């Protein structure tokens, strides 16, 4: 009798751990793995896919000449805009100006891809001369002010800020107000919005990233529910259109229409899509490198704007 009880206790303990592990695996771990059981790709894109001066590169290959003299500006920026500024460098910089060690750019390279947070900091701290990014966060502006930087923002292109869901989600369109109410916690279940009876899992991005800064402006000061507030539901997230359709194309996600307008090049260029955002060439006015204005003027030239358009963004001119 005693032995049977002891075995039952041990079996119950093993069962408890097994149940916990199976729950964690099926609710969380499996979701982060691909169908063949490998880890899903990391958040960073493959830098080597968009290298300048590489005949196998995915960037737009347009060549031009510019009267650049002396120190070439270091160009850095957002991950999603990397194909654009890599193509800029490819078009007007000499080949030896970019050094890539197989996994990242060396500190001496005139092209960097350190993402929005570090690119803004780099311009303020003097580690980068031009950042190609979306609008800054309040913290980034505050840091620039604190350091005495005089940031100049020159709009060079445009894209749509988009919301996306799993492709199996029957919801295709939401209003801006519905999305605000999802993120502020009023709508908690997709069934209230024409979807399945599943909790809504509203996802946010890293603080200070370009898309998170645009999202916070979109929320207009409304308090948001905690990030990753549920694993058992169906998620909604946001990004820039080109990042979703061009760089990280994935059949498992679909972009939502907003207020009945789908974000494509036409609706963005006509201003019909409700959240169109400019992206900028950002520099510090204290930086006296004479090549900076020359380069930025070229970004706005016919060839510069062609690169933006052929990459997949919407030109500003």
């Amino acid at each position: 009798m005693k032995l049977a009880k002891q075995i039952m206790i041990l079996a119950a303990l093993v069962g408890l751990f097994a149940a916990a592990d199976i729950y964690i695996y099926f609710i969380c771990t499996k979701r982060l793995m691909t169908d063949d059981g490998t880890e899903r790709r990391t958040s960073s894109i493959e830098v080597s896919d968009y290298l300048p001066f590489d005949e196998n590169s995915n960037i737009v290959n347009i060549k031009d000449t510019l009267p650049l003299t002396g120190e070439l500006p270091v160009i850095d920026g957002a991950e999603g805009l990397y194909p654009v500024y890599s193509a800029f460098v490819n078009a007007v910089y000499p080949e030896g100006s970019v050094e890539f060690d197989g996994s990242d750019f060396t500190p001496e390279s005139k092209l960097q891809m350190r993402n929005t947070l570090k690119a803004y900091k780099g311009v303020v701290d003097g580690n980068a001369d031009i950042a190609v990014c979306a609008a800054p966060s309040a913290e980034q502006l505050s840091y620039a002010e604190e350091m005495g930087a005089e940031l100049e923002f020159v709009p060079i292109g445009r894209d749509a800020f988009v919301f996306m869901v799993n492709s199996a989600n029957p919801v295709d369109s939401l209003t801006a107000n519905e999305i605000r109410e999802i993120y502020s916690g009023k709508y908690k279940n997709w069934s209230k919005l024409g979807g399945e009876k599943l909790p809504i899992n509203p996802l946010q991005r890293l603080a200070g990233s370009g898309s998170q800064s645009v999202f916070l402006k979109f929320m207009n000061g409304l308090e948001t529910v905690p990030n990753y507030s549920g694993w058992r539901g169906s998620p909604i997230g946001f990004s820039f259109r080109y990042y979703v359709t061009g760089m990280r194309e994935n059949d498992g996600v679909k972009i939502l229409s907003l207020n009945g307008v789908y974000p494509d090049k036409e609706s963005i260029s006509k201003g019909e899509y409700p959240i169109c955002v400019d992206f900028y060439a950002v520099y510090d006015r204290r930086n006296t490198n004479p090549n900076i204005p020359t380069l930025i003027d070229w970004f706005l030239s016919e060839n510069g704007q062609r690169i933006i358009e052929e990459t997949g963004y919407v030109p500003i001119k």
Partner: protein
Amino acid sequence: MSDKTFRRLLAAVTAAGTLITAALVIYTAVLYKNASIIEFIAGGR
């Protein structure tokens, strides 16, 4: 089985279970940190 053996077995099962669960949680956290938002949504439903 004696009480001493039972306690040892209980401790061994608890330790092994805790280790496996902790490893799974850590592995999931690493995957989560590295997953892009697009992949995360695509992996959901």
